[in-house]
């Protein structure tokens, strides 16, 4: 699904990712943890193709395609989704309109017919209900005037409607209360199957309690310095990142 080898990414001339390796197979959920400034968000942006996140070395392949060759919208159409740490407001653009235009742009790029309004509304309404969000939200502008929690849940609604092959979730759990956290976790679990893969970037064990990741990685100074199972995240929760310095990788 996703194969990253020796990836180096520079932002404003500064190398943030310094040789990162990561392999995510179909149906797998990988968690990425790590201290602030270790390059977690940079990884998400680089995968989604944000301007200014320059790949200076290594390779990223998504289903055999070289991601560096694709524009952000082409990556989306190929099935890559990034849930933003800080979802962006777009004043005056109706939420439902935005999501439908995005979905149809992806479908068009894949040579599929546009979705009809009835089916679209049905899908969105179900997703909203799952995330316990008010339907009135569809008529409001994208993320405008949303609370922090609503913005994060809205990302999950978008993911549910767009049905990506690989979803990267960048600190989707931060700033959520325990009820919202559960809803988000359920939203992710609902989409899990033996094909769809997830990369979940988080600071906290509590989200992983609900998600049971296949692999947990620790990112530090632009490299994966430790990988393991669930037990690794639990150790991080109790000991912090201090032990990393004692265990050279």
């Amino acid at each position, binding site marked *: 699904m996703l194969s990253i080898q020796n990836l180096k990414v520079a932002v404003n001339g500064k190398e943030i990712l310094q040789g990162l390796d990561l392999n995510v197979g179909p149906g797998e959920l990988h968690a990425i943890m790590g201290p602030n400034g270790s390059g977690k968000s940079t990884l998400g942006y680089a995968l989604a193709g*944000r301007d200014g996140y320059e790949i200076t070395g290594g390779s990223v392949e998504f289903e055999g395609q070289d991601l560096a060759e694709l*524009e952000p*919208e082409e990556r*989306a159409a190929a099935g890559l989704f990034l849930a933003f740490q800080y*979802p962006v407001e*777009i*004043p*005056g653009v109706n939420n439902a309109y935005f999501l439908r235009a995005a979905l149809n742009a992806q479908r068009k790029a894949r040579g599929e017919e546009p979705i009809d309004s009835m089916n679209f509304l049905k899908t969105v309404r179900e997703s909203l209900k799952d995330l316990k969000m008010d339907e009135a939200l569809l008529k409001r502008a994208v993320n405008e005037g949303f609370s922090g929690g609503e913005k994060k849940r809205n990302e999950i609604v978008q993911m549910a409607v767009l049905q990506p092959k690989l979803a990267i979730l960048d600190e989707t759990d931060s700033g959520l209360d325990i009820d919202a956290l559960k809803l988000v976790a359920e939203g992710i679990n609902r989409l899990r199957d033996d094909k769809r893969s997830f990369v979940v970037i988080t600071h906290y064990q509590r989200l992983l309690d609900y998600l049971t990741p296949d692999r947990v990685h620790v990112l530090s100074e632009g490299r994966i310095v430790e990988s393991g199972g669930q037990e690794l995240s639990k150790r991080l929760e109790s000991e912090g990142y201090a032990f990393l310095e004692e265990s050279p990788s």
Partner: protein
Amino acid sequence: MNQTVEQVNQVIQQRYKAGFYTDIESDRMRVGLDEEVVAMISAKKDEPTWLLEWRLKAFAQWQKMVGPDWAHLKLPAIDFQKIHYYAAPKQKNRPKSLDEVDPKLLETFDKLGVPLHERARLAGVAVDAVFDSVSVGTTFQKELKEAGVIFCSFSEAVQEHPDLVREYLGSVVPPSDNYFAALNSAVFSDGSFVYIPENTRCPMELSTYFRINARDTGQFERTLIIAEAGSEVSYLEGCTAPMRDENQLHAAVVELIARKKAKIKYSTVQNWYPGDENGKGGIYNFVTKRGDCREDDARISWTQVETGSAITWKYPSCILRGDRSAGEFYSVALTHNHQQADTGTKMIHLGKDTTSKIISKGISAGHSNNSYRGLVRIAKRAANARNYTQCDSLLIGKTCGAHTFPYIESANATAKVEHEATTSRIGEDQLFYCRSRGLGEEDAVAMIVDGFCKEVFKELPMEFAVEAKALLEISLEGAVG
């Protein structure tokens, strides 16, 4: 090489779809401007003596005036002696009905999406079509007449309704008002005339489509709309011109009169040729538009979408004379490449409890400059006057400029005047967010700009809102990346 040029031309053609030229024999007056030319225009129209005198007086005033230099515009010198002030498609007799109009003209308006012939007329919209200096026809005249509404070309109004024209002409924008109003008063050649009788709601939307076609010709039209007590009308105008390397002058005057409790809604979609990407060619658009809420509880609303012209100098205004009268101004002004716009409004509060609302959205891209200039004046006797102004600018790229020049003059302490202004750049984060969801870059920009303009678009009649949206998208092609 040739192929490349052709490809480029095709792209430009796509961007400005109205840029074609109609090859039609034209009856054009000699170049230059003097008393004789003014008299010739008047004679062409078979005008009464009072109107000729009115024109000549305006011409004398204009000669003593100088052009405005206060706008935030780089104004090239205009040689008024190199312009033809009158050009009209040649026709043997004035057509009595649309069936007699030259098919080439009908075809032109067809191509512009404004069909005039019986079969394809826009449902529910009556159209007066002005080609260079003359009106070529007005649709639905019979239906309107049954409702008591007069909707005809200005020339026809001079012949058929001289008393109304004489009473109201220049009563809102006197010839001495400003340089371009004086020029227009001297040489105006046609335009539209609307009269809505008392307590009548105009049964359909009225619209005028202005087309400049002839080379080296200026268009100077006048529009006069009179809404009697308790009446209501919605009026729309659209405009286009062929693509040429030379600049062409358009100087119009629009006067609106709303009597007691009357409502006038005036919408403009301005798409004059803006010039090419290097700033060559395009229309110079100097327009004076003013509405007079002459009696109590009158209401005038301006909505404009300005995407064309090399230079736009335009301030649709309201004089709120009657007590409780209300003025509104909703504007989207988009500039790209080397376009310049200095546009806004004036709200003059004279009556008690008068209200005004100004919503202005400026979008700048390329190397363009876009200024909002607005005056809110509260007179001494305008107790409890209220104004709300919101003025937002959106920048696309780093080489364009947005400027805001608000003027507030209040002589009455009970007045409430609010002004809000924002300037933002189309966020790289907004663009990336849209693209990460699968939207292409240009679609994303169009969507963000459309959202930015929403408050104004919702004021436009439905079909024009759709047109305006499409126009913005075309105008912004190539603005990013």
